[in-house]
């Protein structure tokens, strides 16, 4: 009942917003005089989610990377194009079998409580992160031990090669807090790191607003673009739109229906792509629905989907149609794979006939709030080729677990296009959470092992995994979504960070 209520509410909000779009499109705010200052001023970010705890052991990714980046440096810095660069670590190198990573550290860095950053601090942080069992604990699943070699060198031993390990060190697992503070009560509310900013308790209300001020004597002033950063937690999309248009925030994430209104008010889109959406054809062995065990049926499903139309109608064109689950900047991406399954209902029918389903076929699709339009279009398109989609509503409480519970042969979902190895571990590998029926083949296992032991070449080797799952139609991806980050161009500039929902704070700067 609650959900129906919200759906109605959402529909009304959208309707009212459209009606009001005309009158709200007033003149953009005057340039507030940041003309000659490339540094300084205040950056106000409209954050989608609240920070659960400032303990770096509880650090989170996605929308929550930004707030942790204010008080904490990571060992490795991730550039906008995804390249990993030095930050607190100056150099890092794997041993021959990729099970030990030796990291050289900066020697001129201190934490905001005065403690020195060194090899012991790295050891303390990595062990704390693993032990804290926080929201991204999985990032250090492969960590076995940390050895202090000397004051500015550590060797990190892994239980097995983990091609995404260095990527994780540029993310949640890489945030370094002052050793004394780790695991204390205080750090949950007051972060103590070596980062570019320090929290200002006077301007902070948990759950609502967090204020940070630039730290004096920060080791890398280039990363400190502002005097002050304020995070306003705005979970409601209408609130974010209003805050942006009225100038109360400088940058925030909107949904596709609000973008036109924001652009009309002089705001600028700074989009990149992080997520894809589409069907997971989970029952590849045909345990639940024998038809899906036939590769021709799975391919037919892929040919049956009119991706361009769905993108245009549902996403208002803000995205890119695709048939692969790896992102363009991931290294595992193969251009031609997007041509593998063009919209071709005739071919879909032919394949179904070949597989013996000429007289039709029924598949159950679980649906949940937010995918009503998608499921309606899929029902239509599937019907055109002779597949009956039976929709079954599932409650939102444990959506993800419900989807992979083994009750459904095929599900619709949204997924991050992350680092190739993260993708493989998350949705393709035999143990992957989204591999609900734990399907695999010796051929695929071999390709995955090659990536695991691939070292420097692992991303490229993941192209083979990509080819395998596309050719065998493990999924029916529909499109990649644009992350609709909107900024006030009179106040700031922003460079999107690849495969990240929001740009790193280092890539946001005052407008010239």
């Amino acid at each position, binding site marked *: 009942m609650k959900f129906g209520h919200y759906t109605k509410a959402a529909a009304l909000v959208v309707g009212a917003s459209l009606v*009001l779009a005309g009158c709200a499109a007033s003149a953009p705010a005057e340039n507030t005089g940041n003309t000659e200052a490339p540094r300084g001023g205040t950056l106000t970010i409209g954050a989608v989610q609240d920070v659960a*705890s400032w303990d770096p052991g509880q650090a989170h990714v996605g929308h929550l990377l930004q707030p942790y980046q204010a008080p904490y440096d990571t060992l490795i810095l991730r550039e906008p194009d995804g390249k990993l660069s030095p930050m607190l670590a100056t150099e890092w190198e794997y041993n021959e079998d990729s099970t030990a990573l030796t990291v050289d550290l900066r020697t001129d860095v201190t934490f905001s409580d005065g403690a020195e950053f060194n090899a012991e601090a790295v050891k303390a942080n990595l062990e704390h992160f693993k032990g804290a069992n926080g929201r991204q604990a999985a*990032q250090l699943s492969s960590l076995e031990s940390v050895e202090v070699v000397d004051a500015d060198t550590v060797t990190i031993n892994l239980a097995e090669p983990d091609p995404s390990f260095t990527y994780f060190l540029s993310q949640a697992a890489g945030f370094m807090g002052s050793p004394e503070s780790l695991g204390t009560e205080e750090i949950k509310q007051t972060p103590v790191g070596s980062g570019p900013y320090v929290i200002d308790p006077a301007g902070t*209300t948990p759950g609502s607003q967090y204020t940070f001020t630039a730290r004096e004597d920060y080791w890398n002033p280039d990363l400190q673009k502002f005097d002050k950063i304020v995070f306003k937690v705005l979970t*409601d999309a209408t609130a974010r739109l*209003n805050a942006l248009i009225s100038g109360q925030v400088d940058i925030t994430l909107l949904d596709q229906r609000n973008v036109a209104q924001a652009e009309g008010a002089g705001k600028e889109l700074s989009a990149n792509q992080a997520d894809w959406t589409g069907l997971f054809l989970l029952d590849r062995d045909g345990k639940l629905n024998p038809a899906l065990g036939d590769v021709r049926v799975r391919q037919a499903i892929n040919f049956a989907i009119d991706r361009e139309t769905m993108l245009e109608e549902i996403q208002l064109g803000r995205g890119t149609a695709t048939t692969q689950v790896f992102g363009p900047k991931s290294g595992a991406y193969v251009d031609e794979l997007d041509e593998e399954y063009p919209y071709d209902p005739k071919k879909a029918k032919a394949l179904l006939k070949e597989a013996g389903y000429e007289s039709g076929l029924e598949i159950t699709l679980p649906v949940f709030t937010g995918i009503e339009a998608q499921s309606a279009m899929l029902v239509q398109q599937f019907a055109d080729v002779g597949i009956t989609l039976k929709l079954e509503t599932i409650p939102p409480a444990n959506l993800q*677990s419900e989807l992979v519970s083994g009750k459904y042969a095929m599900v619709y979902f949204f997924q991050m296009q992350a680092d190739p190895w993260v993708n493989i571990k*998350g949705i393709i590998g035999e143990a992957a959470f989204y591999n609900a029926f734990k399907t695999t083949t010796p051929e695929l296992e071999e390709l995955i092992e090659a990536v695991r032991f691939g070292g420097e070449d692992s991303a490229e080797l993941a192209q083979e995994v990509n080819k395998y799952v596309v050719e065998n139609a493990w999924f029916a991806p529909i499109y990649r979504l644009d992350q609709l980050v909107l900024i006030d161009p009179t106040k700031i500039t922003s460079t999107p960070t690849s495969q990240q929902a929001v740009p790193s704070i280092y890539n946001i700067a005052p407008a010239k």
Partner: protein
Amino acid sequence: MVTFVSRRLASGVVMLVAISFLTYTLLFFSGTNIARNILGDLATEEQIALKEAELGLDQPLFARFFGWAGSAITGDLGRSWFGSETVAQALTNRLPVTLTLMIVSIVLVAIVATLLGMAAAVKRGWIDRTVQVAAVIGDAIPGFVLAIILVSIFAIQLGWFPAISSIGPGVGADAWIASMTLPVIAIVINYVTSSAQQIRSAVLKQLERDYVRTLRSRGIGEREILFKHVLRSAAPAGLTVLSLQFVGLLGGVVILEQIFALPGMGALAVNATTIGDIPIVMGVVLYTVVIVIIVNLVVDIVNGWLNPKVRVS
């Protein structure tokens, strides 16, 4: 009066225990995968098991409930599973915002509705018709639609008020007033007409009574009859509506707090429910039930004071 109040309090406590247990049970059966929700898709089974043990999710329902209730009695509502605050901190930080919004709104609703309702009953004519039509419209338009219209005009177009709340630590009264104005107006417009309608009917009913004719025949002024006698007799009906509206507002402010980004309990409750933060949800439920009990008690006492018959029954 003492027995009356203590009887009411006792039934309040029973209600509190019953609702806590029911809510806990419902959450228990809906939130089975909370550890997975916290740790994400890539978490291993060991990590999930560890987290479940840490949160006590491996305990049976009764053990968990009595553990929670035992601490709650001593005033310890636990700590948010996702947040940095204790439940008590989280609620104490947000309660002032929600209560200010609700109390200011309901007081304004009471005053305006009483004046409108009485005017409609006494003068009849166009005022009466307007109030009746407005009651239907006011009921039909949801508060958040009004809120969005108000924001578009007065915050974005005219810039008189902030589009989202600027309430934070250490801000002055002016920030509170500026941030509260639009949401309060939205609530008042939404609620005033239906209570004015109730007061109108109650006053009309009293005006037809014999005592009014008697008072008039004794030459007592119309104004005194209205405000001293009729209003006192019509008040219980109005109070009941207002108390119901106040309780309804506890749910109604949820969406308003989201739209205006007010750091109140409603926004907290929505987020906690969405992510399955049971300690926070339980805290919100507990506080809400206590507020409802207090409001009902106060209304009963005021009614008893206005009309001694209520106390006896």
